[in-house]
């Protein structure tokens, strides 16, 4: 099956209806199915400017191997569940109301589900994308512990993370990805490195780089570990 036939089959029937074994190559699968929403190579941020963030439909994946926990990724691709309550670009899924801005579920897009084979192949390829080995190597973070109360204070009062992120299914803001599942989804050094310098990972990130010192980054990372390990 050539690429054009494959693309046509995907458009018509969706991933689940492809003949078994048609997608032998994770790279081809990812490039065919994921590239229209996810960057598989570093975008030319200098030329695109911040407006790139408006048109982005999914998180960039060119450093997926530095970011995700492979086991989680493979499972999620088969049963995708929303991680960002207000979508990838929140202003696009939010509408004004008398009670303030609210998420309009009709404006949120669903992520397609992959079969077990497809998820395994896609994960294998995505985990081979390592654009930011240098950032991971530079991280000195070693997972540790923090008291729940101190972690929560760091997350809320001291740093205001809870304005945009949920640290439980019922607490926190909606514009950023939920963080009570971050420890299951993400590699520990990615978490610490991203908190310390989100702009190095993504020049158009909506996460402010606030120049936290190493201990503050550790406390926040350990809090994500604490709340993440409580998840089923």
């Amino acid at each position, binding site marked *: 099956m050539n690429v054009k036939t494959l693309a046509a089959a995907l458009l018509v029937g969706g991933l689940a209806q492809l003949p078994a074994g048609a997608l032998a190559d994770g790279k081809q699968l990812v490039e065919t199915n994921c590239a229209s929403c996810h960057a598989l190579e570093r975008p030319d941020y200098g030329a695109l400017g911040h407006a790139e963030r408006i048109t982005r439909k999914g998180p960039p994946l060119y450093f997926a191997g530095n970011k995700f926990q492979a086991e989680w990724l493979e499972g999620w691709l088969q049963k995708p569940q929303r991680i960002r309550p207000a979508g990838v670009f929140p202003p696009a899924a*939010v509408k004004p109301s008398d009670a303030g*801005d609210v998420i309009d579920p009709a404006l949120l897009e669903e992520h397609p589900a992959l079969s077990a084979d497809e998820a395994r192949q896609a994960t294998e390829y995505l985990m081979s994308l390592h654009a930011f080995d240098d950032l991971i190597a530079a991280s000195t973070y070693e997972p540790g512990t923090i008291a729940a109360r101190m972690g929560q204070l760091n997350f809320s009062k001291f740093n205001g993370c809870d304005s945009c992120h949920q640290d439980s299914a019922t607490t926190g803001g909606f514009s950023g990805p939920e963080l009570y599942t971050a420890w299951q989804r993400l590699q520990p050094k990615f978490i610490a490195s991203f908190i310390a310098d989100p*702009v190095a990972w993504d020049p158009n990130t909506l996460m402010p780089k606030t120049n936290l010192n190493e201990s503050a980054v550790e406390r926040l990372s350990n809090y994500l570990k604490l709340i993440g390990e409580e998840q089923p």
Partner: protein
Amino acid sequence: MSRTTAMSALKTLKMAAALCAPLFLATALPAAAEDGETLYKIYCTQCHGVEGFGNGVNVPAMSVQPRNHHDRSEMSARTDEELFKAVKHGGKSINKSVLMPAWGENLNDDEINALVLYLRELCCNSGG
């Protein structure tokens, strides 16, 4: 100056700036010269609201209400320098809430200036 005259003057100024921009791009506007409205939509609306009324989608989770940028009296009480400082260094830098983050590592000074200009448009030139 009436509001209509002010808006018309602003539009003329914008048009002139757009026409002249290529001439000065290399020196005066080294950044992509993205307009404040676009930057506001990307970085500010989550808390300050898609229309700038301080009622963004995150507000139910926030212990401090974000500034309503249409509030002419509150906004007029701040100088452009203070607004610039609040965006670049965060709310704490002007003795306001830590919930307003410092954007100085995400946005350059030209971009922050464009945001300040747009804030002035919201508060004082757009019927706010």
